[in-house]
């Protein structure tokens, strides 16, 4: 294990921001930290980055307290976007790279590679303040990992990006993973977390509701999401047992089952021994699980 948080607590005068948080991240793994606004994600990041002290608990990197490791091993993209507005794109990347101990010659190759990959060639000598919001975000993202850190933290990296740039970023994250970088990131967009993460931690008001692999989380709920392309009305379905929730989405009916054993009688009812176009039984989406876990007992 590379990063390990054990019983980490962060208390302020009036409230507890993070309470008894435990998780570990393996080398070269992408780990998602998800939670609502105010769940304690940024506070956790800041404690890992030694920007804030934890009240109690330990944070270690390969067994060494995080405070004692070489700071150049870390990379960080804060949630709020911002770079030096007056600095040119290339100058900015050189500055951050050199500051984190990378040699100029090696840095030049990296900058050229990433500028090309993120389609910023024309903006190389433009001042950051003249770039669009999306391009500024791309520059800041490159700045966060240009020095090839061992461990990269990305706080909401996808927010504000259009679908094309989101894909660019997603592929870049996967490439960094291939190179052996350990990545911890937070996102409100669960589809991104689902696509990228090996493991995750679900936070609610500073308390970990789940920490482990995505598959384990999904298995907790079982295969309860049933999608059927059919003309059968919702009223007809309501006569069936084991249906927790049902709704129509265009030509499909989406059902949440109490458990997967109720799927067979529904299949028999709908197909009646005939061919049907679509009958899909799957795990709940992370989005649905998140809403259930986080929002469930809010009501």
């Amino acid at each position, binding site marked *: 294990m590379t990063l390990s948080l054990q019983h980490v607590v962060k208390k*302020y*005068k009036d409230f507890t921001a993070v309470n008894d948080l435990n998780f570990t991240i393996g080398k070269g793994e992408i780990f998602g930290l998800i939670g609502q606004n105010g769940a304690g994600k940024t506070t956790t990041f*800041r404690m890992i980055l030694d920007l804030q002290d934890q009240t109690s608990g330990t944070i270690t990197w390969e067994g060494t307290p995080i405070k004692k490791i070489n*700071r150049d091993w870390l990379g*960080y993209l804060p949630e709020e976007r911002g770079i030096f507005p007056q600095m040119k794109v290339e100058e900015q990347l050189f500055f951050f790279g050199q500051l984190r101990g990378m040699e100029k010659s090696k840095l030049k190759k990296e900058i050229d590679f990433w500028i090309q990959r993120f389609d910023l060639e024309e903006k190389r000598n433009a001042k950051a303040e003249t770039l669009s919001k999306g391009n500024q975000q791309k520059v800041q993202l490159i700045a966060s990992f240009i020095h090839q850190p061992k461990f990269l933290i990305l706080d909401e990296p996808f927010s504000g990006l259009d679908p094309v740039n989101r894909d660019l970023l997603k592929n870049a994250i996967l490439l960094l993973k291939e190179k052996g970088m350990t990545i911890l990131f937070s996102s409100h967009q669960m589809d991104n977390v689902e696509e990228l993460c090996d493991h995750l931690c679900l936070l609610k008001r500073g308390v970990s509701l789940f920490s482990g692999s995505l598959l384990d989380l999904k298995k907790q709920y079982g295969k309860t999401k049933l999608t059927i392309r059919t003309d059968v009305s919702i009223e007809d379905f309501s006569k069936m047992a084991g249906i927790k929730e049902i709704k129509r989405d265009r030509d499909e009916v989406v059902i949440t089952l109490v458990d997967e054993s109720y799927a067979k009688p529904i299949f028999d009812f709908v197909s009646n021994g005939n061919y049907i176009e679509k009958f899909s039984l799957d795990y709940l989406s992370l989005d649905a699980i998140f809403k259930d876990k986080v929002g469930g007992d809010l009501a």
Partner: protein
Amino acid sequence: MRKFSILLKQLYFQKLRSKTFILMTLLYIGIITVVMFWSDIKAIFVNDEAIEVAIVNETTVDLAPIFASSDDVNFKFPNNDVKPLYEQLKEEKLDAVIHVTEENKNLSADIATYTPLKLNDQSTISSMLQYAGKIYGIGQLNLTAQEADQILNSEPVITMTNLNETVADGKSEDQKEAGMFASYVAGIVIYFFIMAFLSMITTDVANEKGSRALEMLLVSVKPSTHLQSKIFGVFLLALTQIGIIIAVLLTYLGFMDGGEKLDFIQSTINELSFGFVLYILGFLFLTIFLYLIIGALFGSLVSKPEEASQVMTPAVMIPLVGFYVMLSGIGNPDTLLIKVFSYIPLTSGMVMPMRIGATDISPIEPILSFIVLIVTVVAGYMLSLSFYKRSVLTYSSGGIIQKIKTVLKVTT
């Protein structure tokens, strides 16, 4: 150290190339140019012809040697009666007519004008008339020319002897004047550089904090390194500007009046003791340091660059007070106000050099004030550092007190 030098270089060269710095330096050079070449500039824009003044002398005193014409005033001694001269005054052929008579064994002069005289010309004429009055008074005593000359030119020989050995050196008047001049220059330098560079460091930290670039920087740089790089970077920039200004000033002085003014500066510096110069430099640098530390701390408190001026106001008021206290000491550097402000760390840099240079104070007083300043700088740095680490990542609204409260609340 590597990170410190990268941050320092980045700040220094970025600011050196900035429009603000270039314009500010050009502005100072412009002001110096105008001051140094004021008489030439004035000659271009103002037609300063000498005024014509007629003197009607009805006394026995020979006024011609006293009222010698100059570039500003041209004196005539017509034998006419006053009335035709008054006509010429109305026709503006003359600027003034002085009618000098004897009255009760005193010289009496009536200055008639049609257009009021400028204050400068009026003062020149008045001082000449006063001198003429003395000559007239001496003439009434039937003294020989030698005796008269002795009375007019006699000057007392004043020496200072202080029997209290704990009191300093007993400076000569020349030394005190030179000390006053040097401390005044140091005070002005401190004031102007605080005004310019306090705002620079505060807005720079506020910009980095506001743009969240600071959050990225602090992952790989310790807050102490970041704070030091800001203070030393801006300090280096201030030194650069001081250097440019001094170079321009010395060049002007060297070329003007055949280097006469440069000789005056050199003779003034020669009058200063080595210890005094060290004190001036010590107070100058430490005071600038102290304000830069405060500036960086204030910059770390704000959430947006636009709020920088709001938090800077109290820090700007203090040197302003110190500057006026220093100005008040030009007339009398021994007042209680001066003494009190010469110990307050934020103002001592401007006030204490004046006391050291222009008064005979005990050597222990500047040492004490200097120690208080050093302790304040060190304590201010430690306090700022501890606060800086916590405030750079805390974003809050409200006034400065509210911001401090928020930082303390969310970080303790």
